[in-house]
């Protein structure tokens, strides 16, 4: 059972997507796991043949529990979560993991397909040539389900984690509940059953998970806070010029430039890029930036964009758009929910001028971006109104002091002011 977040102790296996005897390649999606926050597609780290499935669907196990045995010549298990250190409590150490190879997506007449999508198409008898891909060529599982013959039904119905929990509590078989959520997903309101007479307040698992992380962060991490207000006139103008003439899907949003600025600064001032583990700072094996995504109806996910410093502006925008869309759809992969070396939080849209984040352990920093605010600035000896942005840093005082934090933030600010370096 992989660890998909600092706050995760256990997960529930929802379904196996492989059987004993199947050959799997590192990066293949082999199971679906349900956490408090979302359903996640789990990738396998070994290449070989499935020898034994150790956990039954519906079972909840602790992080680190082997889920399957893969015969690859060694006795490796499906996925390694951090092992709980003996004698201590559930805070698991993050083990630096090898980057799983991307799911071997094959091209089918110019379309990019993940193994899971190909499997769905096979199972549902869908001719891939009939399925309309997204502009970037990818086909998603939803597209296959939509194209499936009316007689066939997707073998896995979407059920929100909360709905699943309510159904379990009320002893209802969730497969008998018709769904009214997106794509006929079963959501909480679909689960029949009166609230208990002693009006007990139902606990939202997503909220609980977030609460645990925030509690732990504030309990363990001595935060210090810095902020900087940046004149964004040049960058706003350069961005408009960059997007001019481009169709909507090829445009870049300011959020992508903000993320890029953080990635580049974190590569340079790498004391902010990594983890605090057992009393010492462990530098990241790359710059992997998590971005906080607010989910409709409440809750947050923080998908990770790996090696964000190596992506150009357009690539950053594509990655960002992709993980945000999949985060909201509950279609993130396990490799995208862990391994962050720094986090970005962005409340620019909500009319907030500045946001000071809460560091996600075991990271040592989180950068916050507010919205664009017109402010008077001095330019060429005159007072003019320019769009400005307040960027903040919350950092772990065990790992760094204000001077390094200041140097990092100043670098982020300098990049934000220099669109030629970001675009």
């Amino acid at each position, binding site marked *: 059972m992989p660890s998909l977040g600092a706050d995760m102790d256990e997960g529930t296996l929802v379904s196996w997507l492989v059987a004993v005897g199947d050959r799997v390649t590192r990066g293949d999606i082999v199971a679906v796991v349900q956490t408090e926050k979302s359903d996640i597609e789990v990738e396998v780290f070994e290449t070989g043949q499935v020898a034994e499935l150790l956990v039954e669907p519906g079972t909840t196990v602790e992080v680190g529990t082997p889920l399957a045995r893969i015969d690859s010549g060694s006795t490796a298990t499906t996925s390694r979560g951090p092992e709980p250190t003996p004698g201590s409590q559930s805070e698991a150490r993050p083990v630096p993991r090898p980057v799983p190879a991307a799911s071997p997506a094959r091209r089918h007449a110019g379309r990019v397909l993940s193994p899971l999508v190909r499997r769905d198409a096979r199972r549902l008898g869908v001719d891939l040539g009939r399925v309309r891909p997204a502009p970037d060529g990818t086909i998603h599982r939803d597209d296959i389900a939509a194209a499936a013959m009316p007689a066939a039904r997707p073998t896995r119905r979407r059920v929100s984690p909360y709905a699943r929990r309510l159904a379990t509590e009320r002893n209802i078989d969730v497969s008998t509940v018709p769904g009214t*959520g*997106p794509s006929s997903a079963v959501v909480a309101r679909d689960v029949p059953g009166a609230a208990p007479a002693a009006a007990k307040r139902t606990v939202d698992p997503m909220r609980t998970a977030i609460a645990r992380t925030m509690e732990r962060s504030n309990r363990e991490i001595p935060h210090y806070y810095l902020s900087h207000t940046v004149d964004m006139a040049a960058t706003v103008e350069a961005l408009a010029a960059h997007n001019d003439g481009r*169709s*909507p*899907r090829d*445009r870049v*949003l*300011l959020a992508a430039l903000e993320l890029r600025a953080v990635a580049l600064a974190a590569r340079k001032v790498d004391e902010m890029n990594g983890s605090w583990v057992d009393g010492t700072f462990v530098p990241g094996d790359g710059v992997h930036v998590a971005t906080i995504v607010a989910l*409709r109806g409440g809750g947050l996910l923080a998908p990770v964009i790996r090696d964000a410093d190596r992506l150009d502006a357009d690539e950053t925008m594509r990655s960002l758009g992709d993980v945000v869309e999949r985060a909201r759809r509950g279609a993130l992969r396990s490799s995208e929910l862990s391994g962050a070396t720094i986090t970005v939080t962005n409340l620019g849209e909500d009319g907030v001028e500045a946001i000071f984040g809460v560091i996600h352990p075991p990271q040592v920093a989180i950068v916050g971006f507010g919205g664009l605010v017109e402010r008077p600035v001095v330019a060429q000896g005159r007072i003019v109104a320019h769009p400005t942005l307040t960027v903040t840093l919350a950092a772990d005082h065990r790992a760094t002091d204000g001077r390094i934090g200041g140097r990092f933030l100043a670098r982020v600010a300098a990049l934000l002011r220099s669109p030629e370096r970001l675009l």
Partner: protein
Amino acid sequence: MTSDEARQLLGEVLGRIAPGTDLDEIDPTEPLSDELDLDSMDLLSMLGLLHERTGLEFPETDAPKLRTLDDAVEYLVLRSG
């Protein structure tokens, strides 16, 4: 495109971005971003989907003309010819 067709298209597009959207329940004179809790990513997706369906360019400079549902319907009707 007629007004009704534009409304229908917007309903489909917004329904994909903000599942569960019912156009009859939103105030057509208020910004869509407020009514449907859309951020810049969502708005860009909306333009992307509309571009795919209509072939119209939707330059960034026209974004203010699509702020409310009424604005968006009018824009689509005028530009689609």
